């Protein structure tokens, strides 16, 4: 594979799978924080 293809593959994976990971983390963290509030 060319360097350009490898780099775009890694960036694409990071953006999409990273986006999913960040969404889940943010949502879970905030709902846990809210659940702890009296």
């Amino acid at each position, binding site marked *: 594979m*060319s360097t*350009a293809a490898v780099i775009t593959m890694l960036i694409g994976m990071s953006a999409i799978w990273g986006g999913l990971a960040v969404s889940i983390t943010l949502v879970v963290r905030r709902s846990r924080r809210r659940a702890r509030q009296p």
Partner: protein
Amino acid sequence: MDAAREQWGTRLGFLLAAVGSAVGLGNIWRFPYVAWDNGGGAFFVPYLFALLTAGIPLLVLEYAIGHRFRGSAPLSLRRLHPRAEWIGWWQVAVCFLIASYYAVVIAWAAGYAWFSVGTRWGEDPEAFFFESYLGVTEPGSLGGVRLGVLLPLALVWGLTLAVLSGGIRRGIERANRVLIPLLLLMFLVIVLRAVTLEGSAVGLEALFEPDWSSIGDASVWVAAYGQIFFSLSIGFAIMITYASYLPRDGDLTGNAFIAGFSNASFELLAGIGVFAAIGFLATTGGIGVDEVARDGIGLAFVIFPEIISQLPGPSGLYGVLFFGSLVLAGISSLISITQTYIAALQEKFELRRRTAVGVAGGGTALVSVSYATGGGINTLDVVDRFINNFGVAAVGLVEVVVIAWLIRELPRLRTHADGVSDLRLGMWWVISLGAVTPLVLGWMTIDNLRTEFTEPYGDYPLMFLAVLGWGLAALALVVGIAMSRARWPDGLALDVPGGPSDHGSNRREGRP
């Protein structure tokens, strides 16, 4: 009625159902080709832009409508505005037409999972599919019913209607808790096997090699928005219906981000698996990737059987996994499509769930049989083309324009979504729905109309296109308007359940 409304048991249950609805055949057989054909790696730029400016905003909009007004698409839109109900019925009619042929494609996949054992398509998978399996006839000629399609079709509808009979929590949620993890597991095995094949890097290079000049091409941006729009199950009643079963304190915006990125994640995984396998086929055949890259039916039922036939080792197992994945992805989507009109008919005519499932679902299953004939694939091809272009895209455009510009309900829906969500919507949401999405969908619809009038689709007779293409697309709209004239049951509240001031006012701790 609202007090007795069914609810998802858990947030995960809703998310799995929403992702199951979005992840369908298009993720596996459409996205990889669209990405490759529209700039390769460079396609991710417009694709992500479309996800953030159309996909997720539309998901939030539909979640907010369903959650705020707690009904099927027609009832929710009726409660949003008395003159918006017909849009919901139009969406529901589109869903009915899609379900009738979508089930047949799942049935083909189920048949092919069976044929994979012993690679029964032989040396010429194309001839096997079109001649031996489907027995394709001339357009306009029905031909006989194909038993090899009818039997798996009966299984597909039997399973789908059994799930729907169980209701939201015990039927749809429970089914998706099995279907989606199983689909992910099976697809991971497919991808891992594909990337270890000889020549897989050739396919991956073709998929990811960026053509940055394509970014300046308007058609590439339209392709990205089209992929996001069709792949996320937005614009045609499903997400409104599913969100109406969320608990009062359901986090709408967070769920939309998770569902949107989950769908995109699966598409990317599918792209890697499909193009790695295509690279293997191109390498073993000593030909270029562009000679074997296809989408849709050609990819699934012609190219993949060729790939499976040439695989070293237990190739039948790989075929079972691939076609099994198509079946799982398809059924989870078919369940959601069918639920839209079952819910709508239940509410409009005060039907019990099992009666609605029997009448509406059973009715669709009977219509499906017309696609299980020798002429079925021609009908399916034309109906799919016109219903997507002038059903799903057109009703999505009308929905957004009416809500954003005519009845101007975006601020109220934004307040509602913010009231129950952890993540706040910014101005990007209003701009996306008020300007970006209508412009892109409007462009797509006008371009589709221009194409259809200048170059009629395929080699079909014009009368065939007029009746099954234009005719059915128009019929969905007419049925939508006619159904909105029928009266709702006397006891059903047509104002907002819980009153106008319930925006997030009843948050609970420990949301599911």
